[in-house]
C-alpha cells in the first residue's frame, strides 16, 4: 500500500526524514518496499520568451528557436507544432531535472544537446512534462504578462511528496490506512497521535430512506444522506493527495470516499440517491445466480450466496466489492447516500475470488476492518462532502447494527513475555512499550497486565499475539544476546543422513557430476517407465508437461543427456539422488503412495573422446557395472550383492532377498524418444532398500590380513552361446566352498576351433585358507566338484 509522507504528518509530528521513517516502519513490521519522490519543485525551470523560430535545416518537424531567459538568450530545438514567436513558455534550462522517469528509475536531467546537428540549450516543456497536468498537445503557453526568468515554482502551486510503499502482512488490517500507520509510528516513537475531529450524531429516524439487513453476512450498515451537492472535479489539494498515492481522481464525491478510506481504513460507497428505487437499501443474498453490471461496465455472473446491496428494484452493488453502473455518481447527481458498512471478511473474500476482482474496498473488507468505525467514517465523509461539494447533510445517521463486536480483554504475564522474548522487562516497561497502540490497561499486578483490546486489532486474540506487539515495538535488534547460539549435541547424525552424504561423496569420487532434475513430468514421459495405474498425478498441474510425479530418475537423466548432446557434449557421466513416486499397496507415508529416495548413475556417449593416445571409445555396460561395483564396495556391500540378468539388457542387483535396483542398457526405442544417438547405460537403485540392506549387513569392518598366500587357479569351459557367465559364476560360487575368495573372468573366446555356437569362458579363482597355505592337492578336488556341476547344469566342457 502506498503511504504519503505528507499525509502522515497530519496525524503525527514527525521529526524523521522519509528515509529514516522508512527504516523505522520496516523495523516495526510495516516492511517498506519502495520509496518514491512524487512531484518536483521544478528548480531551473523558468519563464522564457520565444523571440524567433526558424525551420530546422535537417528536420521538417523540428523548429530552431531563440529564447530569451531574462539574463541570456539561448537556442532551443523544439518539436511542438504550437510554438510561436512572442510566446511566454516554461523552459527547462540545462542542468534542471524534470519529473520524467527514465528506465533506470532516475529522473530526466537536461543537458546541452545537438538535435540533428543544431545545438539545443534546454527544453520548452508541455504540461505533462512538468507534472502540472496530463496535456501533451504541444508546449504549455503561459500568461504573456509574466516576466522572463521567473521560476515556474513561483507561478504554480507545486505539490511534492514522498511516497512510501509498504507491504501489509495479513494480520494487520489496521495498517491499511494512513491513520493506522501513523498510530504504529506514534507508538514506536512515543509521539502524540492526532485523529481527525469527527462528531458522530445520534441515529436518526429519517423518512427519506430506509435500510434493511436481511443477511448475517452484514454486521452493520450506516447510511447518511447529503443533498444538493455539486459534482465537479476535486480541488487541487484533494487531487494532489490522491494522485500521489496512485489513485486517479474521478469527481469530488468519489474522491472523498477514497480519501476517507485511505485516511481511516473504512471502504465507503456513494450512491446517486435519486437512482435508488423507493429510497430503499436492502442488504441480502440470493439463492440463485445473479447477473449484474458493475461500474467497470462488466456484466458479472455472481453465484448464489453473493451478498448484494439492493434498492426497491434489485441489486445496485456487489457488497464490499464494487458498485453498479446504474446508481453510480455522475455529473448530474445532486443527492448522495453514503454507505459505510461492515461485511463478513470470508464472504467478501469468496466473492472477490469468484469474480477475480480485488478492489481497494474488498482488500480491506477481506482482512477485517474495525467493526466500530462505520458511523465515524460516514460522518467524516459527509463533513468533507459538504466542505468540498456544498449541500446539506441529514442531521443524524441511519445505523443498522445487528451484529455488535465488543472490545475484549487480554491478560499478559510479564514472566511469559520475558521467557519468550529473552528479555528482562518490567510491567511498567511493557505498558510503556505498547502504550501508543491504544491498548487500555484495565488492571495490573506484579506479573500480569490486563489490556482492553480495541476492535481495530482483530489479530490480538491470544497472549502470544500481544507478546509480538511488545517484541516488535521494543525492536528485536535490541534484544540482548544470551550467548547461547551454539549448543553441544551428542545426538549423532542418522544412518540415513550418513548414507545420503556417502552416496553423494562416492558419486563425486567416481567422476560423476550430480544433476537435479524436475520431479514433475508429463504423463506421456512417465508412461515410458510405469503403467498408468502406477502413476501419481497432480489434480491441478501448471500444464500437461508437468502433471505427473516422476516414477523414476531415468527421465531426468535421459532428458539432461539429450540436452547436453544437443549442445555438443560427447561424454555424459551423471548421478542424481532424488525422490520418486508411484501408486502402490506398499505405502510409505500415505495410503496407496510409495515415495522413495533413488540413486541413479548414468553413462552415455564416449568414455574416451578422440585423442592421440587412442581412438574414441563409447561407454559399455561394463563401465557402468564397474562403477556400481565400486559404489557397493564403498558401502561395504559388494561381497554380498547378487547380480541376476533380468533379460538381455538388464541386471537386477539384490542383497539377500532385498532387491536394490537395476543396471541396464537403455533400449533403442527409449533412446529414440529422447533423441539420443549414443549407447546409454543407467543404474537406478533405491536408497531406502540399500539402507535396509546396510542394517542387515553383517560384514565385519575389519578382518586380519591373511597370513597365508592365496592359491590361484585358472580354468576355461566351453558352453553354448546362450549360457550366461553370471549363471556359471553363481554355480561356481555355490560349489567352491568358503575358501573361494574371488572369482573373475579373464578371457572370453569364440571361434571355429571350439565349434559353431559355442564360446569359451576362462575363470580365475582365488582360494585362501586362513589357517594354512593351500596347495594343488587341496584345490584340485574343489575344481573337480565345480567342473562336474558345470558339466551337469550347463553341459559345459572343460577346455584343456
Amino acid at each position: 500500500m502506498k503511504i504519503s509522507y505528507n499525509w502522515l504528518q497530519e496525524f503525527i509530528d514527525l521529526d524523521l526524514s522519509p528515509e529514516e521513517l522508512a527504516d523505522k516502519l520496516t523495523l516495526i513490521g510495516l516492511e517498506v518496499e519502495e520509496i518514491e519522490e512524487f512531484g518536483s519543485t521544478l528548480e531551473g525551470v523558468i519563464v522564457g520568451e520565444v523571440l524567433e523560430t526558424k525551420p530546422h535545416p535537417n528536420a521538417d518537424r523540428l523548429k530552431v528557436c531563440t529564447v530569451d531567459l531574462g539574463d541570456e538568450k539561448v537556442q532551443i530545438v523544439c518539436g511542438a507544432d504550437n510554438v510561436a514567436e512572442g510566446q511566454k513558455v516554461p523552459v527547462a534550462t540545462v542542468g534542471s531535472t524534470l519529473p520524467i522517469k527514465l528506465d533506470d528509475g532516475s529522473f530526466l536531467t537536461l543537458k546541452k544537446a545537438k538535435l540533428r546537428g543544431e545545438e539545443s540549450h534546454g527544453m520548452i516543456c508541455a504540461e505533462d512534462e512538468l507534472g502540472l497536468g496530463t496535456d501533451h498537445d504541444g508546449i504549455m503557453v503561459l500568461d504573456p504578462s509574466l516576466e522572463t526568468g521567473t521560476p515556474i515554482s513561483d507561478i504554480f502551486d507545486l505539490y511534492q511528496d514522498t511516497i512510501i510503499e509498504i507491504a501489509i502482512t495479513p494480520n494487520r488490517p489496521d495498517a491499511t490506512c494512513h491513520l493506522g500507520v501513523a498510530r504504529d509510528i506514534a507508538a514506536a516513537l512515543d509521539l502524540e497521535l492526532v485523529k481527525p475531529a469527527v462528531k458522530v450524531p445520534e441515529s436518526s429516524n429519517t423518512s427519506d430512506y430506509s435500510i434493511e439487513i436481511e443477511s448475517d453476512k452484514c454486521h452493520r450498515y450506516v447510511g447518511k444522506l447529503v443533498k444538493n451537492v455539486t459534482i465537479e472535479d476535486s480541488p487541487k489539494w484533494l487531487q494532489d493527495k490522491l494522485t500521489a498515492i496512485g489513485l486517479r481522481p474521478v469527481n469530488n464525491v468519489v474522491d472523498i470516499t477514497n480519501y476517507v478510506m485511505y485516511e481511516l481504513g473504512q471502504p465507503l460507497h456513494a450512491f446517486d440517491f435519486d437512482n435508488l428505487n423507493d429510497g430503499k437499501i436492502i442488504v441480502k443474498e440470493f439463492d440463485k445466480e445473479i447477473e449484474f453490471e458493475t461500474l467497470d461496465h462488466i456484466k458479472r455472473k455472481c453465484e448464489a450466496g453473493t451478498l448484494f446491496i439492493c434498492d426497491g428494484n434489485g441489486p445496485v452493488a456487489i457488497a464490499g466489492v464494487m458498485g453498479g453502473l446504474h446508481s453510480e455518481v455522475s455529473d448530474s447527481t445532486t443527492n448522495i447516500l453514503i454507505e459505510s458498512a461492515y461485511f463478513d471478511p470470508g464472504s467478501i473474500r469468496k466473492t472477490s475470488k469468484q469474480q477475480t476482482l480485488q478492489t481497494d474496498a474488498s482488500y480491506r473488507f477481506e482482512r477485517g476492518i474495525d467493526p466500530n468505525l462505520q458511523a465515524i467514517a460516514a460522518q467524516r465523509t459527509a463533513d468533507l462532502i459538504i466542505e468540498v461539494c456544498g449541500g446539506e447533510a441529514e442531521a443524524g445517521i441511519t445505523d443498522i447494527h445487528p451484529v455488535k463486536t465488543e472490545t475484549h480483554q487480554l491478560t499478559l504475564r510479564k514472566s511469559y513475555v520475558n521467557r519468550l522474548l529473552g528479555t528482562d522487562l518490567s510491567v511498567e516497561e511493557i505498558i510503556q512499550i505498547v502504550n501508543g497502540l491504544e491498548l487500555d490497561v484495565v488492571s495490573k499486578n506484579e506479573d500480569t497486565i490486563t489490556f482492553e483490546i480495541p476492535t481495530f486489532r482483530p489479530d490480538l486474540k491470544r497472549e502470544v499475539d500481544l507478546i509480538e506487539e511488545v517484541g516488535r515495538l521494543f525492536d528485536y535488534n535490541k534484544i540482548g544476546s544470551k550467548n547461547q547460539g551454539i549448543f553441544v549435541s551428542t545426538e549423532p547424525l542418522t544412518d540415513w543422513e550418513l548414507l545420503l552424504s556417502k552416496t553423494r561423496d562416492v558419486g563425486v569420487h567416481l567422476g560423476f557430476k550430480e544433476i537435479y532434475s524436475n520431479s514433475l513430468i508429463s504423463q506421456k514421459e512417465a508412461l515410458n517407465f510405469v503403467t498408468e495405474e502406477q502413476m501419481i498425478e497432480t489434480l491441478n498441474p501448471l500444464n500437461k508437461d508437468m502433471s505427473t510425479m516422476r516414477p523414476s530418475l531415468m527421465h531426468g537423466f535421459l532428458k539432461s543427456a539429450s540436452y547436453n548432446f544437443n549442445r555438443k557434449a560427447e561424454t555424459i557421466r551423471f548421478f542424481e539422488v532424488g525422490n520418486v513416486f508411484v501408486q502402490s499397496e506398499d505405502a510409505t507415508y500415505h495410503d496407496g503412495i510409495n515415495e522413495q529416495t533413488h540413486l541413479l548413475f548414468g553413462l552415455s556417449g564416449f568414455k574416451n573422446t578422440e585423442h592421440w593416445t587412442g581412438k574414441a571409445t563409447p561407454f559399455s555396460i561394463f563401465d557402468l557395472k564397474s562403477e556400481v561395483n565400486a559404489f557397493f564396495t564403498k558401502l561395504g556391500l559388494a561381497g554380498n550383492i547378487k547380480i541376476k540378468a533380468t533379460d538381455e539388457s538388464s541386471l537386477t542387483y539384490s542383497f539377500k532377498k532385498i532387491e536394490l535396483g537395476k543396471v541396464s542398457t537403455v533400449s533403442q526405442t527409449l533412446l529414440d524418444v529422447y533423441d539420443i544417438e549414443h549407447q546409454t547405460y543407467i543404474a537406478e537403485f533405491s536408497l531406502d532398500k540399500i539402507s535396509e540392506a546396510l542394517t542387515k549387513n553383517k560384514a565385519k569392518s575389519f578382518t586380519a590380513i591373511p597370513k597365508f598366500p592365496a592359491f590361484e587357479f585358472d580354468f576355461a569351459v566351453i558352453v553354448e552361446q546362450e549360457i550366461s557367465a553370471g549363471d556359471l559364476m553363481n554355480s561356481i560360487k555355490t560349489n567352491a566352498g568358503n575358501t573361494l575368495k574371488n572369482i573373475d573372468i579373464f578371457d572370453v573366446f569364440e571361434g571355429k576351433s571350439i565349434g559353431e555356437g559355442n564360446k569359451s569362458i576362462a575363470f580365475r579363482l582365488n582360494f585362501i585358507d586362513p589357517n594354512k597355505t593351500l596347495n594343488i592337492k587341496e584345490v584340485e578336488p574343489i575344481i573337480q566338484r565345480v567342473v562336474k556341476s558345470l558339466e551337469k547344469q550347463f553341459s559345459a566342457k572343460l577346455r584343456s
Partner: protein
Amino acid sequence: MLDKVEALKKEIESFPVSNSDELENFRLEFLSKNGKIQSMFKMIGQVAKEDKAAFGKSMNDLKNLAQNRFDELQSSFASSTTAERSATDDITLTAPLSPVGSLHPLTQTLEEMKSIFYRLGFTISHGPEIEDDFHNFTALNFPPNHPARDEQDTFFVRKSDDPKVDDLVLRTHTSPVQIRLMEKQKPPIRAIMPGRVYRNEAVSPKSYFLFHQVEALYVDENVSVADLKDTLITFAKLMYGNDVKYRLRPGFFPFTEPSLEMDIWWGSKEKGKWLEILGSGMVDPNVFKAAGVDPEKYTGFAWGMGVERIAILKHGIDDIRSFYENDIRFLEQFN
C-alpha cells in the same frame, strides 16, 4: 674355415655405422636370420669333427661381438640424437581427460548450510514430498480459508469431500517435517529439515514451481527470541562472513508468533541493499498443540530459508531455471 671367421670378425668391427639407418643395415648384415653370422653357423656341417667345438666357440664370440656393437651403437644413438626421438615422446602433448565428479551447486550450498548447523548442534531430519493437509497446513495453524490452500498456490494430489480423508498436496514448505519430528520425538529437539518443496507458480527466471528449503527447529523448556537471535546471527556470520551486516524485523507466518525476518546487506556500502534471507519466529502455541507438545511447558523457535536464493546470491546466477537444466557448462563451474 677359421680364417673366414677371422675375416667376418674384421668385417663386423669395421662396418661403418654413423646413424640408425646404417645400424639397421648392420643388423641385417650380421644379426638377422639370414645374416652372415647365421649363414656361417649353418656351415658347421662342413667343419671337421675335432674342430667343431672351437668353431662353435669362435662363432659365439663373433655373435656376441656383433650383438654388443649393435647394442652400444643403438644406445648411443638413442641418448645423443634428439632428432631420432619418437613423436609421442613429447611430454607437452595433451593428456586424456579424467572424469571430474562434482556436487550440484544446490547440494554444495545445502552442504555448507548443513555443516554450519551441525556445528551449531543441530541434527538432520527428513519428511515426504507428498504431504497430507494436516501436516502441511492444519497443524501449522493455517486457517481453513488461507490463500495458500488455493489451487492457485498449491498442487493437489488427492482431494476428497469426505472430511475423514485428508487431502494430499505436494508440500509447499519443509515446515511439515517439524510436525512429524515433534510427533515422534520428545523435546529437547534441535534439527534441520532440508528438502524439495512445490508451489503452483509460473516459470520465469525468478521463480520455479519447485525449489529447496531448509527448516530449523529448536524446542526446549526455555527457548526465547534471544536464543533465536543468537543462532540466526551465528548462522549469518558463518555463512556470509564475520563482518556481515544484518537486521531483524517483524514478519508474519501462520506457524510462528512472534515472527521475525532476517535481512542482510548485500553489495557495497553505497549501492547495496537489504535482502531478505530467511523467515523465522517462535513456534505458535497452536502448532505445539497440534503436534502434541505442551505449549506452557515448552517454547521453541523455527526458521526456514530457500536454498536456491542463497545459491543465487552466492554465485550471482541470474536464472533459477539453470539449476534444473543440468547443462554441463553450468555444472562444471561448480567443481
